[in-house]
C-alpha cells in the first residue's frame, strides 16, 4: 500500500494543476456551466491531446498510458479543486474504468480507444428512481433480443447522461445484474435534470426496448459490477478531497486578508479553530482516499479484496469532509461568501451534490458495518 507520492506523481499533479489554472479558471467554469454544452470542448481536446489525461489510467492496448487509480485520483483531486466542468468523471473514471475491468475484450476494443483519445464520451447509468448507487436497487430489465438485448426501465441522476455517446447501463437479467452498452437514440429518451450543482450535468434516461449489447465475458455473472460501483465511489472521493482542500485554501487566504475590528479575521480563535478542524478533516480524508486508490490499484491487479471496505470508508468520510469544508467556507467569508460572484457556493453545491449521488454517508457506513462484521 502506498500512501505517499513519487516524484513522477507529484509532477503529474503539478502539470494538471497548471493546466487547469490556465485553461479552466473560475471565469471559464462560470461561463461553461451556464452554457448549453456544460463544458469547453476545446479544453477537453487539449486534455486528451496535450496531457493524455483521458487515457492516463486506461490500458495501454487501447491507447491509454496504463496507469491506475492512484494517478487517476491525483487528476480527479485537481479537477475537484478547480471545479472543472467536463465529462471526465463520467466518461473516464466511471465508464472507462467499468469497461477496463469488464474483462470483455470486444467491448474494450470497441469503445475504449474513443474514450482514451477523448473523441467519444460515455456515461454510467446505475441509479433509478427512489434508489441509489446499489445493484440491489436496479429494476431496469434486460431481455435477450436477436443477437443482443432489449432494455426497459428508467435511470436517473446519470452524470453527463444527456451528452454521452455511449451509455453503460446496469440492468437485471435472469442471471442477475449485468452491464449493457447502449448507443444511438433508438428506444432511449434523455432529459436533463435541473439540480443543485451547476458544474455537473445530470440526466434522466428512459429506456423502452432500447437495443443493447452486453458488456462482460460470457458466463460471468457480472461479479465485477461491485468493483465498477466502488471504483466510481473512490474516484468521486478524490474529487471531493480536492474540493475540500480548495475550500480550506480559500478560507485561509481570506482569513489572512479580511480585516474586521482592525485585525485580520484569521487572528480570531473562532476562525482559527474552524480552519484547524478543516485541516484535520481534509488530511484525514486524504488518508482515506489515498488508501482507497491504492487498494483499487491492487484490485485491478487482481488482489485488493478490501476495495469495498476502502471505498465505503472513503465515500463516507470524504463526502462529509467536503460538505463541511464548503459550509465553513461560506460562513468564514460572511456576506461575500453568500454572493453568486464568489466561488464558495459552487463548492457547496458540488459538495452537497456529490455527497448524495453515490449514496449518503450513512449508507456508506451501513455497508461498511456489514462488510467488517459489525
Amino acid at each position: 500500500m502506498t500512501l505517499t507520492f513519487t516524484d513522477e506523481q507529484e509532477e503529474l499533479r503539478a502539470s494538471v494543476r497548471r493546466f487547469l489554472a490556465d485553461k479552466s479558471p473560475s471565469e471559464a467554469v462560470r461561463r461553461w456551466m451556464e452554457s448549453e454544452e456544460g463544458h469547453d470542448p476545446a479544453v477537453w481536446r487539449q486534455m486528451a491531446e496535450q496531457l493524455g489525461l483521458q487515457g492516463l489510467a486506461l490500458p495501454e492496448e487501447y491507447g491509454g498510458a496504463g496507469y491506475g487509480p492512484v494517478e487517476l485520483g491525483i487528476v480527479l483531486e485537481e479537477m475537484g479543486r478547480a471545479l472543472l466542468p467536463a465529462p471526465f468523471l463520467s466518461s473516464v473514471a466511471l465508464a472507462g474504468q467499468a469497461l477496463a475491468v469488464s474483462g470483455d475484450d470486444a467491448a474494450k476494443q470497441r469503445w475504449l480507444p474513443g474514450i482514451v483519445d477523448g473523441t467519444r464520451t460515455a456515461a454510467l447509468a446505475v441509479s433509478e428512481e427512489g434508489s441509489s448507487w446499489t445493484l440491489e436497487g436496479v429494476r431496469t430489465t434486460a431481455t435477450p433480443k436477436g443477437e443482443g438485448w432489449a432494455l426497459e426501465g428508467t435511470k436517473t441522476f446519470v452524470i453527463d447522461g444527456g451528452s454521452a455517446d455511449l451509455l453503460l447501463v446496469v440492468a437485471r437479467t435472469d442471471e442477475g445484474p449485468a452491464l449493457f452498452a447502449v448507443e444511438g437514440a433508438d428506444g432511449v429518451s434523455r432529459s436533463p435534470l435541473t439540480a443543485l450543482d451547476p458544474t455537473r450535468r445530470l440526466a434522466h434516461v428512459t429506456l423502452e426496448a432500447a437495443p443493447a449489447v452486453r458488456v462482460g465475458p460470457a458466463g460471468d455473472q457480472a461479479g465485477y459490477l461491485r468493483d465498477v460501483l466502488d471504483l466510481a465511489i473512490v474516484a468521486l472521493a478524490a474529487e471531493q478531497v480536492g474540493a475540500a482542500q480548495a475550500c480550506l485554501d480559500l478560507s485561509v487566504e481570506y482569513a489572512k486578508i479580511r480585516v474586521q475590528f482592525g485585525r485580520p479575521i484569521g487572528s480570531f480563535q473562532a476562525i482559527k479553530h474552524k480552519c484547524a478542524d478543516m485541516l484535520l478533516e481534509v488530511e484525514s480524508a486524504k488518508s482515506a482516499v489515498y488508501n482507497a486508490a491504492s487498494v483499487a490499484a491492487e484490485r485491478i491487479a487482481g488482489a485488493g479484496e478490501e476495495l469495498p471496505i476502502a471505498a465505503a470508508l472513503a465515500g463516507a468520510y470524504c463526502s462529509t469532509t467536503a460538505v463541511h469544508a464548503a459550509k465553513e467556507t461560506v460562513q468564514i467569508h460572511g456576506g461575500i461568501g453568500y454572493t453568486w460572484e464568489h466561488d464558495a457556493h459552487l463548492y457547496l453545491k458540488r459538495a452537497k451534490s456529490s455527497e448524495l449521488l453515490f449514496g449518503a454517508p450513512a449508507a456508506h457506513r451501513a455497508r461498511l458495518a456489514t462488510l467488517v462484521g459489525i
Partner: protein
Amino acid sequence: MTGSLTATPADVETDEEFRARLRAFLTDHHPGKRPRDVVEGRAWHKAWLARLFDAGFAGPSFPREYGGMDLPFTRQVIYQEEYNRARVPGPQGTGLGIAAPTLVKYGTEEQKQQFLRPMIRGDKVWAQGYSEPEAGSDLPSLRTTARREGDSYVVDGQKVWNTHADYADILFTLVRTGTPESRQKGITYLLIDAHAPGVTVRPLRDITGGTHFSEIFFDAVRVPVANRIGEENEGWPLVRTSLGHERAAGAMNQAALYRRVVTELTALAKERGLTADPLVRDRLADFEVRVRIMRYTGMRVIADIVSRGEPGPASSTSRLFITTFEQDLHEFAVDMLGADGLLLRDDPRSVQRGRWVGGFLSTRASTIGAGTAEIQRNTIAEQVLGLPRDPAMPPR
C-alpha cells in the same frame, strides 16, 4: 380612519373577543393567493396592507396618534398568533420592524407625524442601509460619508445586503459624519429618499441564484437635514433601539412557522416511507424536540415580559437557536431525500418544488446576516454572561 379602533376600544373588549374579531376580519378579508408576477404581487400586497390599516388592524405596538393600535403586550401576542394563523402577508420592507421603534423613540414630533402613518399603512416601503462591503460584522467601521452643505447632507458611498431596497421608497441609513477613525462616535442616522437623484439600487445575485438583496450606491445624494433622526454623530445608539417586545413576538412567529415546516417534513418522510429508518426517525424526533422548545422559549420570554417587564436570558439565545435549527433542518431534509433532494424548483421532478434544497441554500445566510453566529456568541458571552472583552477589540 381610526373610527373602527375607537368603536371597539380595548378596555371594553376581552382578549378573547379581540381575538375573535381579528380572526373574523382576517378570514373574511383574506387576500387570497399572491399573484405570480412580482410587480403585481407588490401592488396586491400594498392593497392588503392598506385594507388592514383602514380596518384598524395595523401596527399593533405603535401609538394610536400615528396610526398604530397601541395594544398591550399580551394582546400583541394574540395579534401575532392570529396573523400567523391566517397566513396573510406581513409588512413590506423592514421599516415597521426596525425603523419604526427607532422613530418612535428618537424622532421629533414632526418626523413621527410625517413618516409613521404612511409606513404603517404600507404606502411607503422602507429598507435598511446599514451593511457595507468592507464593514460586515464590524458595522462601526462603515465608510459611507455624509457631508453637511447648508440644509442638506451630501451622501457618498456604498451599502450592501439590503433586502427590499429594490422597491423601497425610503432608505434608513447609517452614514459617517465624523472622521474616518471615529467609529461609533461619528455615525449619523439618515432617512434617504430612495428615488432621489444619485441613488442607484442594484439587485445582488446570491447563492440561491435569486436576488433577495441589493447593493445601494450613493453618488452625491442630497438629504435634507430634517431627515436626520437624532443628533449628528449620535446615530450609533439608535441602531440598538431595543426591539425587545417585537423580537419576542417575532420569535413566536418563527416557532409557529417552523412548527408547520417540521410537520410538513415529517409528512413528507412518511409519504416516502423514510420513517422506517431509525436514523431518520431519530433526526426527525430531534427536530420535533427543538421546534417545540422554540415555542416554549418564546412563551417563556413573553411570560417574563408580561410578569416582570423584561425578558430573561432565554431571549438572548433565541436567534442563535432558530438560525442553527433552520440550517440543520433544511440540510437534513435534503439528505433524507437523497439525490431527489438535489432537484431545483425548476425541475419538473423536484420534490415539493425544491423547497428543501432552496432552504438549504438560503439558510446559509441565517448565520451570517445581521451579525454572524460567531459575533452573536461573543455578544451573548459578554452582554449576558459578563465575560470580559477581547483586549484586542476596539471599545464598544
